[in-house]
């Protein structure tokens, strides 16, 4: 499994840029680090639907830790998924449930992507992962 950057790395990196182009170039570049689901594994039962782009999610549980393979057909969403997985990948259910994703996106100054108004599927995937973690911890 590829090593993902940590949330602190990401916060520091993004703070460093001052224009939108650099910020989104960084997110686009991050997309290449996504622990990606192969085409064959992108089955309908794994789709988490947003209205603009589809995201596929395959969770695996190893001991008490949760791992996720994901895929999106859009690059920016893929990059944003790396930001999300930086917080969730290989964590315990409790850590996942306790993590404040909204606040993290606010700190990154990317909250519009996680807000209600965007049909990017990102919000749906965060909800799905939290739901899985909640089930696993109970």
């Amino acid at each position, binding site marked *: 499994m590829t090593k993902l950057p940590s949330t602190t790395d990401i916060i520091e990196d993004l703070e460093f840029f001052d224009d*939108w*182009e650099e910020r*989104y*170039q960084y997110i*686009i570049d991050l997309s290449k680090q996504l622990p990606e689901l192969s085409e064959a594994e992108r089955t309908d039962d794994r789709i988490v639907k947003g*209205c*603009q*782009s589809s995201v596929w999610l395959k969770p695996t549980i190893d001991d008490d830790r949760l791992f996720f393979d994901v895929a999106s*057909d*859009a*690059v*920016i*969403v893929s990059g944003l998924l790396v930001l999300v997985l930086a917080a969730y990948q290989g964590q315990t259910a409790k850590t996942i449930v306790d993590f404040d994703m909204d606040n993290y996106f606010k700190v990154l100054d990317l909250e519009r992507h996680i807000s209600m108004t965007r*049909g*990017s599927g990102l919000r749906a995937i965060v909800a799905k992962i939290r739901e899985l973690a909640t089930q696993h911890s109970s």
Partner: protein
Amino acid sequence: MSLDIDALRAQFPILSTKVNGKTLTYLDNAATTQKPQVVIDALVDFYTQCNSNVHRGAHSLSDEATRRFENARSNIQTFINANQREEVIWTSGTTEAINIVANGLAQKLKAGDEVLITEMEHHANLVTWQQACLRAGATLQVAQINEIGELDVADFTAKLSSNTRLVAFPHASNALGTLNAINELTSIVKSQSDALVLIDGAQGIAHCKVDVQAIGCDFYVFSGHKLCAPTGVGILWGRYSVLENWPVWQTGGEMIRTVDYQESTWGVLPHRLEAGTPNIAGAVGLGAAVEWFMQQDLDALKAHETALLNYAMDKAKDFSGIQLVGTAKEKVGVMSFLIDGTHPGDLGFILDQQGVAIRTGDHCAQPLMKRLGLGGTARASFSIYNTFEEIDTLFVALNKAKNMLA
């Protein structure tokens, strides 16, 4: 003929706002259009000067509200050249207008009957008929389009039969921009069948002169918000002889003549199809919008829109990696496209960062996208107040997006 574009733009206050620190380049006009100050003023004036309910007037304010509301109806009548003002029904928009007709039709359809639509429908002009057919056991027929997004008129004609009860097609396609020859299609239907004809005018009304009597259709429907008027108001125009006994849609106040506990009788047009308190201010706003349009040089506006579309399509030809979706010979100002190696959602996002507003996705036309073998497209759509410079801005922004994404 020349158009003073600066003076025109100055009438639309939102066009000078900034988005993401950049001057707004608004190219999402097929989704909704911006409003001129006169329309905004009509809403404000209504609420500040004469807000009241209509048709119940025991007092002067209500009389004034009713006068403005009915005056707006007359403006619409003039604008689309309806024979009678009673043929103009206020609805919440295109979607509700189609539902009124589809709901009535469902009560008349029998098993074996057919409804004909086309492959270029917006869901509003598709799901409505599909559900009406399902309720009645009738069959939905779909006329094909060709590769460039034009209706296959031979297929359309072949799919008409003595069982066809209604034919619905768009004046113009929201996803592709294709402008249909509505007069010709209507006369084909009328000469080959007894079917009623409904035209979804959502994308046509802002771009073309509409004369419902000359078209010869039975229903023409549109939304105010795509015609520089407020959201939440639209029009069902229906031929008097058809609408007069059309099954009522919603029931309740305003639309009745007499009410008893076990039965009621219905009022006359237009009220029998307008249950409850209408969107009075919205109607007044739509009346103001069409009045504004009628004061403009419509030929000059149309020429400007055509020039904008041609300019954009020409620029696209020189832009490497772009694939145009929908290149019909007759089009309204809609340019749907893909850029090699990029997802439309990503394009839309990078454009937005540069202040350029477009729409991306399936454009409420999933079967059309499937027919074209696409998941969706990016769509820039133009209106009267757009400029050539804005199209230049679009292509500069697209170039940047391509460099970042592809």
